[in-house]
């Protein structure tokens, strides 16, 4: 996260880290159930086999395992069948864990939005991740507050890419607070009036985040995929 701040442990209990040996943290992910997480499809390019991955949750400092940390192997990786790596469209994957996580105050799923429920432009939401900070990679989870930007306005920042309805933009024209390399798959969450937090976006792409070209970040639009996510969970839960 660029322009963010270090997060208090347990503040974002749905944030998880998708890891693979020997590199360790590769991407962010988000717990949406005790046995299910979401991340983006591009994290699995060239490594679609579930065997090489594990999901670590309840962690704040990647360098210091905490007693609240829970690690699960990945049982299934379900990449969206329409994922297009050339234009980074339909950039979403459902991850099935080999067994349920134990729900604690440090490990807890986030809510999915209702079908058709999109965040309004100019509302403020939060992004989190262990991605690049512009000058270094952090050990501790970072958080940043970003503003939701309409698709039309977002398109004007990206001349060379088409912003589709499967995408959601958030951030600032000046790029002051933005996601960056290593944040991919992590959450963009907004607080609902009742106090709960819902997952509206997954960090997907943007300009090279510490280059001269700035602008908002582009996130996978989770609302667009809610039905698909629910069906994947159903199909992989029952022996049909």
């Amino acid at each position, binding site marked *: 996260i660029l322009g963010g701040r270090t997060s208090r442990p*347990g503040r974002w209990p749905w944030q998880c880290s998708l890891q693979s040996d020997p590199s360790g943290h590769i991407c962010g992910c988000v717990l949406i159930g005790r046995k299910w997480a979401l991340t983006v499809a591009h994290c699995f390019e060239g490594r679609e086999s579930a065997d090489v991955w594990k999901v670590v949750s309840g962690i704040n400092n990647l360098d210091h395992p905490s007693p609240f940390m829970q690690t699960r192997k990945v049982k299934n990786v379900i990449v969206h069948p329409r994922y297009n790596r050339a234009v980074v469209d339909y950039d979403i994957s459902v991850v099935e864990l080999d067994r349920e996580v134990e729900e604690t105050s440090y490990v807890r799923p986030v809510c999915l939005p209702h079908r058709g429920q999109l965040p309004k432009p100019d509302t403020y939401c939060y992004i989190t991740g262990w991605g690049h900070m512009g000058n270094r990679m952090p050990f501790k989870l970072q958080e940043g507050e970003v503003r939701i930007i309409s698709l039309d306005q977002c398109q004007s920042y990206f001349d060379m890419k088409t912003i589709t309805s499967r995408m959601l933009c958030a951030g600032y024209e000046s790029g002051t607070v933005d996601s960056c390399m290593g944040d991919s798959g992590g959450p963009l969450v907004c607080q609902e009036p009742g106090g709960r937090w819902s997952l509206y976006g997954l960090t997907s792409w943007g300009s090279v985040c510490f280059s001269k070209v700035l602008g908002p970040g582009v996130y996978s639009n989770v609302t667009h995929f809610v039905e698909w996510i629910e069906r994947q969970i159903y199909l992989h839960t029952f022996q049909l």
Partner: protein
Amino acid sequence: CISTTCTHGCHGNTPCDSRTNGSNCSQCEPITLELCMNLPYNTTSFPNYLGHQTQKETSISWESSLFPALVQTNCYKYLMFFACTILVPKCDPESHQKVPPCRSLCRNSKERCESVLGIVGLQWPEDTDCTQFPEDGQGNTTCLLPDPDVDECSPSHFKCRSGRCVLSSKRCDGRMDCDDDSDEEHCGCKERGLWECPSNKACIKHTMICDGFPDCPDLADERNCTICDDNELACNNHECVHRTLWCDGRKHCSDSSDEWDCVSLSNGSSAALTVRRTASEYQVCADDWHPALSRLACGQMGLGVPTAAEMLLDEPSQPGRRRWLHVRPDWLQKNGSALQAMLEKRGHPCHSRTKVSLHCSKEDCGRRPAARMSKR
């Protein structure tokens, strides 16, 4: 290839001999960079001439934004061709080595377009020193020159009648972007080789029609895709499956859509459990009902865990003949199956005349732990 496994830039997980070095990794890979998909070659090799390690890195690079923007100034007809030769260099299929652009192509691009960049205070990309590229026809080395017929606009761009390239999304957007306004001419989907959604006139690719994913707001692109027999129903992917096979707990549509949405709760206050079977709705007879089945039903609907399960007497005053599903005697052996697989139709009605009613509560989500207080 310094480690025993190739990195992403080395094309997936192909194992490399641990003695090889990075230079031996070179392989040809298909071009996926949207900007450069109309080149007279279709494979590339990385790293490119700007030092990017992968096509993904290239796609989000500063130069990938710069060149398409610069093309719109019409500064040089072959600028985009030159840009692509350095962004996704041609890969020689025999040697697997990069084929550079010719020095004259580089010089012409730089001479004609660098000054345009200067006007807006930007600099020509570093790492494009033209002397690194060979002169045309120099010895045995080969280099790339544009074919006079080369398309100067990438597939992401529309070519104005004047020759200028503008972003495809600006075509037919109601605003004039070409200097000759040609981007707003012939704006029907048909003229653009696309299909028009009837409700909002949006244009979609023909490959998106009847592919199982709705793209028009009213789902028009997924209608009338199949003609099934009277005794069949259409799956989400437009296959036809006999109606007696729907919601029987086994998959018959290849996308499993015959087993979707089989279990629901009625909207009434009673929240009666309703199960679809052979394309009709049934209520569930409470005889032999078990709490484990309540857990299964709530979980299957994505509604969490049961908070109450009631057995409601079926009101005879309500009109219509009741249709019942009964718990199968062998339901325990069907561990891991969906609820509809554990129910069956029988020749007799429900003995107790009570139906199952459920209340489920979703698992807690989206709550952060309360901030801990400490006395100061």
